[in-house]
């Protein structure tokens, strides 16, 4: 019995690794070289504690996936430098701010994070707009 359990485990592990490898081969659109740097700025200042991207993150602040549409870089700069009752002020240099902006612009162009625009199918699944 134990040996057949071992076999099942091995098969599952192989499938899992194959699935992971397949995910890594999927095409990766919306590449820009500042994306990675901007992502690190996002992490360095822990924006994720309060903000979401595609609905993932903290809930104290709004989702920022499409925030660049609101007023571009000046708006981002204003928010970061002045904060709000619930958002602290951050002291970033210009490069960090530019990278962060390009990171958020990459997020924005990658898809739609507004759940109200998705379509549902009878089997309970959804399709993007």
């Amino acid at each position, binding site marked *: 019995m134990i040996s057949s359990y071992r076999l099942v485990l091995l098969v599952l592990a192989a499938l899992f690794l194959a699935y992971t490898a397949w*995910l890594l081969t999927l095409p990766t659109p919306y590449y820009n070289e500042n994306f990675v740097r901007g992502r690190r700025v996002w992490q360095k200042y822990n924006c994720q504690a309060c903000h979401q991207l595609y609905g993932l993150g903290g809930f104290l602040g709004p989702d920022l996936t499409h925030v660049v549409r609101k007023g571009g870089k000046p708006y981002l700069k204003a928010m970061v430098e002045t904060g709000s009752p619930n958002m602290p002020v951050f002291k970033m240099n210009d490069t960090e701010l530019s990278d962060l902006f390009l990171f958020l612009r990459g997020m924005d162009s990658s898809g739609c994070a*507004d759940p109200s625009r998705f379509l549902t199918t009878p089997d309970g699944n959804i399709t993007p707009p």
Partner: protein
Amino acid sequence: MKKLKFPDPDRLQVSLAIVLLICGVFFGVMASHSYSAPGFWKSWLGFIKLRPLHVSSVVFWILLSAQALVNIALKNITQRKIPAWINWSRIVLIFIGIISIFICYFNLQFGGREYWEFPAWIAIPLLLVWLLQLAGMLFHLRHIPSPPVYIWMWYTGCTFLVFTFLENYLWLVPGIQNTPVRDLMFQWKSAGSLVGSWNQMIYGLGMYAMVQITGNTKPASSPLAFSMYFLGLVNLMFNWGHHIYILPSHGAVRTISYVVSMTEWIILLRLFYLWLKEFKRKRPEAVGMALQFLMAADRWVLINLLLALLMSVPALNLYTHGTQVTLAHSMGTTIGINTMLLLGIICQFMVPMQMQYGRWFRAGFRLLQAGLIIFWAILLLSGISRGYWQMQPGISSFQSMMLQHTMYFRIMAWSGSLMMSGFYLILFPLLMKWLKNKLPTV
């Protein structure tokens, strides 16, 4: 000369984990108060610090106690000791890691991702901790001839933990997570599997404790037990996509996780039926508290799995994703299931001493359950309300929606405080007893 006597490393680790839980609960309650009162603690301990402090403390409570309890259980099973250097290097690295994390957070030094928000270099001692743990466990493995299912769960859980932890740091490798979709996909793939991995370890421990309590070993080695284990494993491997249904990744990712998630209905019903039957049959007096915790976990498994199943239907997920419903689910899982199981197992491991649990301890248990149910329900309600708001774009601004939710947040903070008092009534005496209690030695 008197010989210096060192405490047992695993016992020390469980004690540290309990201390982390005590801290984690405190940070969590403070964070929830800052939700309802803007500016609360903003000056010295704002939400930006409180959230990672809370999350890391409780994540390490779960991981470290699960690790050490598995080690204690393995020691009981094989009656063998692993080389002392493995244990002690693990403990030293844990202390280095935890202290560094706390120092960084207090100094606003972040840089990592959700759940692991500390600067990335701290992942090195932590990775060594998981590897040493795995090495210690492999040492025991040769001495277990026909392992019951909980042993399988401990080993696969720990192996996956190492895998997901490494995967979680893929962003450090240039050229992999360099676009939005792939970046978020891999982040939540590893975060989702991480929880699945520790669940394997903890559910395995729960099963081990149940076998000890009831004396019935059959449910832990039957073909059915193994089928359930494999079903759980399939979910750990393939259902993480339900965190990212709205991400524009390949459609197959969504469909695979939808289909796989739905198989959890089987686990839900089976678990409920089996454990309830077992609990009803035999209730020895001496393990009263352990059993109470395990039974509480059982109830929470039911409620949470039901919620998880509903949230895993993509069409319903549109209403719950990005809202406090997700938070209700993760609080229900980490407190209601993981923490209850771990506390139950800690109590069970003290059974040889015929522990007496006082009135305060029992009162704490009730407060904890009451606080948690209110907390969970209010998160669910506020999440549903936020879900309604996000499905009606333009209905009101983010600020006014949050303002309308102030009452929810207040109840959330006060029920959290209730839970904290329950926790403290339990944890302080438990820690004292755990430190004094003699563990079964080999």
